[in-house]
């Protein structure tokens, strides 16, 4: 068995701004093999984006990061500022939710992509320009020569997201991190981008972590799903197993609350209550106050993520 491409062990991230420290990620362990797509599924505040951003060390100063993260054999927590600059983009790159905010408005897309290629590959501007053109063709942007000379405001959301993806794969990274890349897009464009990511992932053999709140999106792209709740992974498994046979009560609730299932019924089945305050987490299982199957033990002990069989694991006392 080869080493996993991404190996996160017992990661905790605490933000120390404001009066009370906020523990956004609370002991997450996740490994992603080479060429594997893992979807991190969760609601806002579940820690899915924070987990992913930790892999690029994108957190503000004063954030406490505990645990270990290894990507492609490198210990991410130990990298110096210079090593970090070499690592970002060349080993791991990221596609953000809002391409309009992630791209620089005062440079053309061509300039921005060329800059990244020159920085990491040390090639001439002419060579970088021809590679940028190749990338724009790869992500199927129509009339690529003209589009490279466009500023971000001149392009539609779908085109910008394609440009972001082109920039992300510009330096042949091993890992692609996608932070809700299709949430701001229309359904007809979303499916195009999902198919593009899937295609590039296969062609380049990328390891992908795909953060999403949409189970349907996860089902379209992922090999495995890890469901997060209040900073912890509560369930992990192969995509078909998690969707067809969810084990954790939260996953069950999330899948049960889908409107697709309510056809012919006049009400949706919902999870009562709201996610907990991360600055004041309950002592036991974070989902216990909303859980219909909670027992006394749930209120005192945090359940560990336990393997149920070779590929799946769940953090619930019912399966411990």
């Amino acid at each position, binding site marked *: 068995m080869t080493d996993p491409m991404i190996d996160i062990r017992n990661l905790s991230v605490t933000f120390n701004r404001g009066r009370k420290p906020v523990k956004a990620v609370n002991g997450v362990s996740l490994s992603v093999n080479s060429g594997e797509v893992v979807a991190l599924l969760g609601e806002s505040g579940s820690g899915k984006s924070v987990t992913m951003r930790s892999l690029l060390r994108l957190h503000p100063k004063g954030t406490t990061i505990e645990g270990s993260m290894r990507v492609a054999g490198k210990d991410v927590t130990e990298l110096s500022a210079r090593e970090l600059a070499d690592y970002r983009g060349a080993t791991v790159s990221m596609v953000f939710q809002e391409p309009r905010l992630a791209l620089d408005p005062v440079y053309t897309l061509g300039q921005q992509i060329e800059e990244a290629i020159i920085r990491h590959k040390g090639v001439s501007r002419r060579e970088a320009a021809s590679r940028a053109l190749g990338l724009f063709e790869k992500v199927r942007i129509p009339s690529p020569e003209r589009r490279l000379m466009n500023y971000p405001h001149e392009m539609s959301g779908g085109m910008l997201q394609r440009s972001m993806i082109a920039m992300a794969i510009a330096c042949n990274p091993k890992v692609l991190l996608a932070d809700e890349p299709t949430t701001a897009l*229309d*359904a007809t464009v979303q499916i195009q981008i999902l198919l593009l990511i899937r295609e590039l992932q296969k062609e380049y053999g990328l390891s992908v972590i795909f953060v999403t709140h949409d189970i349907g999106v996860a089902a379209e792209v992922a090999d495995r799903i890890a469901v997060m709740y209040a900073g912890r992974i509560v369930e992990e498994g192969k995509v*078909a197993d998690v969707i067809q046979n969810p084990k954790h009560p939260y996953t069950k609730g999330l899948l049960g609350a889908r*409107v697709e299932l309510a*056809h012919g019924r006049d009400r949706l089945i919902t999870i009562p209550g709201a996610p907990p305050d991360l600055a004041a987490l309950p002592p036991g299982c974070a989902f216990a106050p909303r859980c219909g199957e909670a027992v006394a033990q749930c209120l005192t002990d945090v359940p560990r993520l336990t393997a149920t069989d070779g590929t799946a694991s769940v953090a619930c006392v019912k399966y411990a």
Partner: protein
Amino acid sequence: MINLVGEPTHHLPVGERGGPAQPLISVKGLLKHFPVKGSGFLKPKKVVHAVDGVDFDILKGETLGVVGESGCGKSTTARLLMQLIAPDRGEILFDGETVGETLPLSEYRRQVQMVFQDSYASLNPRLTIEESIAFAPRVHGVPAPKAIARAHDLLHRVGLEPVRFAGRYPHELSGGQRQRVNIARALALEPRLVILDEAVSALDKSVEAQVLNLLLDLKRDFGLTYLFISHDLNVVRFMCERVMVMYLGKVAEIGERDAIFEETRHPYSSALLASMPKMDPGERTLEPPLSGDPPNPIDPPAGCRFHTRCSFAEDVCRQTLPPLTRISGAQSAACLMATPNSGHSRAPAQLEA
């Protein structure tokens, strides 16, 4: 004072003036073009064809869903209905009366309320929740104590305990709670039509389900009619009795839910349906149903607006703007393939009886 305009309907109670069979809202030829900045002087004048001649009815007590990509005019339609912006052309009949003519605007606005997508931006950050909800009734002349009492009733009704929430400010609430406040505020004037413009889109799935259930309960209890705008077809299928599909400022297809979802007659509606992610990883989408982004509404294609992305397009589609044609009692579509004798090779030969 002499009443020059005869208004014989005024002795009837509100709600019965147009008769029971009258649609609550009937929109005819609604059109709004926005001028583009920097065009017009020494340059050709450009306009955004946001809503380009739209006709539809909202029946009493129904939920009409509006779907389409961004830029198709769904939000502009909502804002025109709400009279937040003035239409360039077209009229709106509310319960048989023309809005702005026989039905004064203040009276109309009392009966039509709106809930927006951004729950935070639509509340005044300096007003407490109860002040926000009581604001509109006070403007309309309800005494303050009565308005506050009603605000508390409504808060209770939308699932927020008045004792805990009435005195709070918007920033102290979660997104789901704020959207409940917005719904309560919309109901404060006892409206008959509520326009929900992507009202649940910004919420997490588990919270979204709670708010959808609340909307269904309120509709039943207050006898409301909804115009439900959303990009999520699954939610629209669950919430709406009838669905309108819009594309680049035009109605592509309108009809009863089951007709639209199961016997789609417009290729755009089918592509939209096929674009929804599949829940079964064994049956993943292999080819994108539509390529490219929607065309720019500043310069919409001639003929059928959809012909540039349509796989059935023929020469006739580039020249003829398809009229919205009734296909059955339940459904109308604006596609030459559904229009008899349109010249399209797939067009039906004649009207079905």
